[in-house]
């Protein structure tokens, strides 16, 4: 890429949020390769738009770009949202990468399975509920920041969050009863 596109402050301001960008892309797309494409697209957009970025919230700004890129991708590839969650999220590699918090391998395995199951349950939520829940519970954004990233009124953020949590608890309950 040409030298003029290099911007040292992009590296300082935006790149600390690269993991956050990946996390959101991964949860939105639910599929590794699709998330990577979205992330790459988003980073190119971010670099392009960066000269006009005057805001004070680079993480929110970047997440907004990631979200836009993800939605564009979903629109282009109608059906990506319909990919059953099990194909994308059952990836054992993703689980193996997580640091084990327990010395007991059996407990670790159970926890890994639970995590895997929770991932699947979150994945089954409609995308607008899923993004709200992920931004709150995993990315830990405030309501105000979620409203900015998703371009949604705060009241809607709150009701989506409530619906997402209720659905998740309900699904987890059904799963437990079934297993």
């Amino acid at each position, binding site marked *: *890429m040409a*030298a003029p*596109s*290099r911007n040292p*402050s*992009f*590296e*300082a301001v935006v*790149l*600390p*949020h*690269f*993991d956050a*960008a*990946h*996390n959101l892309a*991964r*949860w939105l797309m639910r599929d590794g390769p699709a998330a*990577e494409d979205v*992330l*790459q697209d988003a*980073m*190119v957009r971010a*670099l392009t738009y960066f000269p006009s970025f005057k805001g*004070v*919230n680079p*993480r929110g700004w970047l997440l907004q770009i990631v979200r836009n890129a993800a939605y564009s991708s979903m629109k282009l590839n109608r059906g990506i949202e319909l990919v059953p969650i099990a194909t994308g999220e059952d990836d054992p590699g*993703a689980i193996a*990468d*997580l*640091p084990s*918090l*327990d*010395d007991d391998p059996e407990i670790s395995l159970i926890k890994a399975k*639970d*995590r895997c199951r*929770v991932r699947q349950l*979150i994945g089954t939520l409609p995308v607008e509920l899923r993004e709200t829940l992920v931004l*709150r*519970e*995993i*990315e*830990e954004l*405030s*309501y*105000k920041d979620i*409203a900015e990233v998703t371009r949604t*009124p*705060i*009241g*809607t953020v*709150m*009701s989506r*969050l*409530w619906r997402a*949590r*209720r659905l*998740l*608890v309900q699904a*987890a309950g059904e799963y437990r009863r079934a297993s």
Partner: protein
Amino acid sequence: MMAGDMNDRCDMVLLVQAEFDGELDAARAADLAVHRAHCPVCQAAEAELTRARELFQGDLYQPAPDDLRERILAQLDLATPAPTLARPRRFPHFAAWRPTMGGFGLGAACAAAIMLLVLSPNQQNLTEQVVASHVRALQPGHLEDVASTDQHTVKPWFDGRIDFAPPVRDFAAAGFPLIGGRLDYIEGRPVAALVYQRGKHIIDVYVWPEAATAALRPTTDELNGYNVVHWTQDGMTFWAVSDVEPGQLRAFAAAWRKPS
């Protein structure tokens, strides 16, 4: 699916959730507590929120794999940056989004009762101070005055150096081993800084006594790429700072908040 669901029958439920998410100021939270004490619907909502959050206890954060990061940055012709401390972030103002609250699906009385928490100027200032202190401490040789993974070595070290006994706990079992402690200064007063490790990352926890009111649930903030979680418990105020992901830092705070 939710027909006949009693949980949606109280207008205060979304306020219960806002309080649960640390978005209510103390006065509103106190008002809500009075209501909740005699509202079974809100009590059930609180229980449900707790169950939902329990599902997130595992580490669900999905950071970018190193090879992907390198590939994308190479395509952008960017090198992986070293963390830098840029100018302090200015906090967006509350009033800017207040008008959007007309869109609530809640009763008007409820909407009037809403007051979401914004960090006070003092807390913003503290966020800046603890992040600056953390960055200073990351310079070679500044991290710890007493290097020990043994809480029974670290705790007595503070005796006579500060006028309070900070709680010192090791969370190695939860993946956050204690690696030492040091004396630091926040708000012009000496405070205990406990140093923990999470993988390749360092977590500093600043602790000092707080003549506080009620225990404050963890609130998260971010400054220049560093995450900050602040809470109070047992008469002490805690500020945890690190470049680990916010989810991990919150898990760390949760470990602290569990009774030892």
